[in-house]
Every structure is written in C-alpha cells, then in structure tokens.
C-alpha cells in the first residue's frame, strides 16, 4: 500500500519516528466540530423537551395526534412518577432517564431528557434555541471549510471516502475481524484510515451532518419560504423534525463509538495526534 507519509524523509528502518498525521486545518475543524456537535446535541435535547412528540407530514400537534409516531412523557404522582417512551403503539418504561428523572436537587423532574444531558440543565427553550442556532452557524461554516479543503486538496477522496478496493467483501470482512479483535493499525498502516473508519467518517461528515443541517433548515418557516424544496425534501416540516431527531441519534451513537474506540486504541496517543498533529510510528 503506497501511503505517502507527509513527513518521512530518510527514515531509518525500524526506528520510531514522528510524522505529521493530521494537518492544521483538520485539527482545527475537528475540535471546532466536536464542540459544536456536543452543544447542538445538548441544546437540542432541551428544545425537544418543549414538545416531546414527533410526527410525520407537514403538520402535527396535540390536536392532530394521528400523525404522531414518538412521544416521551410521564404518568403517576409527582412523588413517584413513571417516565415512558412511546414508539408507535409500543410503550417502554424509561423512568429515571426519559420522561421523569431526578434533578440536581434530588427531586423528580418531569422533563423529556434528564438535566445532565441538556444545556441549559433545566428547561429553558429560549436560551437553548439561541445557543443551538449560534452553534448551527459554527457547524455549517466549519463544515464548509473542512469540505472545501478536502475537495480542493483531494484528501476527501484519498483519506475519507472508502475506495472500491476497500469495499470489496473480503477486505471489508478482514477489517471487521481486525476491529473485533481490537487489532488497530500500527506503523505505516496507522497513517491512513481503514475501511470501517472510512465508512463511519464519511457517513457522519457526508451523510448525517448534511442531513441534520438540511432538516434543521427545513424547520425554519423563513427558509422554507426562501427555498421551498427544503421541507418537501423530507415530506413536510414535521417529517423533517423527525428525521432531524433520528439523524441526531445516529450522530450521538457515532460519538459514543468514536470515544470508545479512541479509548481502546490509545487515548493519549490519539488525542495527542489530533492536538499536535504528530504521531510516533
């Protein structure tokens, strides 16, 4: 495999050396994106608490529940509430996490997501919205900078998008087995992404983040008037809100997996590389 390490002049074979793994623009956009995604997730969960129901179609409200497919709520008494999640006709008991959770004052909170998952920690739609939209701008501008650099430099296709050879079933299977054994790439191989990593990174950056941005815009009545295709792309504003939520959940899932794999593959080494750009191989 011809992976050209950017800085590998006259390396002495077998001797560890420091190489440039992540360029400055990648490091800056990575951490800006990390902050934006976390703030957007936590403020988004606070916003959801103002109306913890999801619908399909253009419209949907407590007076039009036939469009509803998901709902978070609570029943019982304030002293002993039961939190639940309804998905279609199925009800899941989520007491302690969704619907009813214990607040910082050790009392029950009747709110969709618990205080530790939301920003601000208590119900505050106004503040959560203002923060959400500021960091939405950060996410969009930062994403465009990353994408622009990736496309113009060709690194997007070289480093992120999986190649046809990598997507061959045998190769794919090999990488799945290596991941399952927690055998992470070493030496020269650590200087480029393997296929599962590429699928995950391309999926998040080229599919999920564009989806949350487009569905987010589709919830804006001003943007729907400016660009009428926005909400119809998803089958209506309430559908866009549902897809926004599902894509958010997928991004949160990626984030959790990403953090676990960083921990398993050497958190100091990996974070060091994403901060300084340098990796010893």
């Amino acid at each position, binding site marked *: 495999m011809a992976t050209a390490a950017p800085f590998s002049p006259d390396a002495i074979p077998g001797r560890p050396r420091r190489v440039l793994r992540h360029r400055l623009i990648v490091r800056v956009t990575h951490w800006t994106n990390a902050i934006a995604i976390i703030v957007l997730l936590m403020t988004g969960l606070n916003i959801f608490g103002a109306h913890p129901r999801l619908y399909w179609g253009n419209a949907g409200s*407590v*007076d*039009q529940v036939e469009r509803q497919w998901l709902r978070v709520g609570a029943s019982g008494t304030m002293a002993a509430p039961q939190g639940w999640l309804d998905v279609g006709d199925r009800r899941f008991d989520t007491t302690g996490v969704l619907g009813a959770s214990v607040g910082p004052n050790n009392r029950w909170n009747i709110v969709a997501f618990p205080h530790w998952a939301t920003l601000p920690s208590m119900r505050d739609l106004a503040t959560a919205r203002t923060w959400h939209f500021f960091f939405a701008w950060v996410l969009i501008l930062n994403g465009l900078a990353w994408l622009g650099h990736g496309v113009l430099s060709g690194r997007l296709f070289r480093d992120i998008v999986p190649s046809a050879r990598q997507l061959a079933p045998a190769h794919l299977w090999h990488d799945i087995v290596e991941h399952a054994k927690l055998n992470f790439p070493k030496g020269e191989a650590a200087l480029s992404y393997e296929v599962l990593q590429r699928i995950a990174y391309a999926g998040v950056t080229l599919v999920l983040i564009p989806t949350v941005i487009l569905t987010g815009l589709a919830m804006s009545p001003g943007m729907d008037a400016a660009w009428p295709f926005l909400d119809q792309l998803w089958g209506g504003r309430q559908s866009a809100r549902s897809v926004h939520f599902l894509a958010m959940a997928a991004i949160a899932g990626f984030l959790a997996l990403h953090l676990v794999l960083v921990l398993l593959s050497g958190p100091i080494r990996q974070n060091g590389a994403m901060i300084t750009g340098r990796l010893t191989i």
Partner: protein
Amino acid sequence: MILRRQLLTALPAGLMLTGCDALTRNSTAKAIIGSGEQATYRWQRLVGRDGLAREFSAADISPVFKVNGTRAPTNPLWQALSVGGFADWRLKVSGLVSRELSLSLPQLRALPQRSQITRHDCVEGWSAIGQWTGPQLASILKAAGLRDGARYIVFLCADDYGGEASKGGLQSSSRYYESIDLVDAFHPQTILAHSLNNQPLSTGNGAPVRLRVERQLGYKQAKYLMQIVVADSLAPFGGGKGGYWPDRGYEWYAGT
C-alpha cells in the same frame, strides 16, 4: 474510598455542567451567542426577501387548529367588546403615520381580502395548517401613509399573558405585543386575519383580528389586536425587545 471515587467521577461532570449553565448567564457570552440571530436575519433577508410561504390545499387543513398562548383574555375592555360582538371594536393605527386610522371590523372586511392556507409553526415544535382571511397589512399602511423614520410595525394586543411552564426560563405576566420590520409588513402574505377556515376567529385563536406573518414562528402571530403603532425604535414598548417573548429571551426575528 467509594466516596472519593464518586467525587472523582462526579466532580468534573458537575463542574462542566454548572460551568455551562453559568456561561449561559454571562453577559459577554450572551452577546456573542446572540449574534447568531443577526446572522440568521441577514441571511434570510439575503436569500429569501420576497419568498412566499407555501400555500396548501384545503385537504391539508388541520382538523383542529391548536389554541396556544392566551385562551381567553381577562382584560375587561376586551371582554366587553366580545360581549358586544366586537361592534364597538376599533383597530387604531398611529405613530409615524400621515393619517391616524380607526378601523371597524366591517371596514377591514370591505378592503380587498386575501385568503391563504398556510402552516403555523410554533416555537415549541408543533405545526398546524389553517386558512386565514383578511386584508393585507400593506393596504392599511398605505392608507395611513408611513412617515420618514418608520422602521417597525408594532402590534399592541388586548391580552395579559403569564407565560408557559413547558417552555421554562423566565415566566412573568404582561400585556402581549409583537413587532415586525417593513419587509415583512409589506409582504403580500402578511394579513390581518379576521377568519380562520372561513369562520370568524374564535376566542382562543385571537378574536376579532390577529396578525399573520407567515414566514415567522407562531409567537409573532399576535392575537386580540387593538392597535398598530408605526415606530422608529422598539425601545418604548414593553421590555424594549420588540415583543412579549423577545422580552423573555426569544429571538425578535423568529424566521427560525
């Protein structure tokens, strides 16, 4: 030992959370974060200044148009007008105008009417579709004549509103009002609606007349209109931020 371990894990998370909450109250942070609203306002004016909100078909109309905010004003003046079938109701138009107006319901109905089936998007997240009918705000403003310096159209309502627990944040009661810029004021879909789904407005939906400014969220659609003031500044009204909800931390430009 157990206590120490709990402290070690709970402390950083706790510090981070209280740190973030404190940051949301810091005035410098508020100013920086609040700049996002200006960016959104300018962007939407740039790409969609003349854009029209989607108009739906009769089949799309929501079976029940959800009532939100004030359900029935407690203001005795409004209650007396309501009892009288709003025969004595007058919409005053004042401020930076050449001619002050005082319009009755029959006068509003006598103006050229616009009927539109649009989607109402609440800041909370839900939507409802209804058919609104009434004169365009532009024709009333043209009749009054805007004077130099006019920048905002302010809508004064009859209802005192106490807020909503589901939204959280600051809760306090005061007279409802709203305001829009001249771009939205002269937009063809900005109307003073007296009818919803071909029926006179119900009490819950803002009788006798409410504003429809279709490219913004529900809280801009001021109900129980009493007076329109053309102004050069929002400072003299309410808390000075241009609306009941903007005074409580919500964006004045509610296009998102």
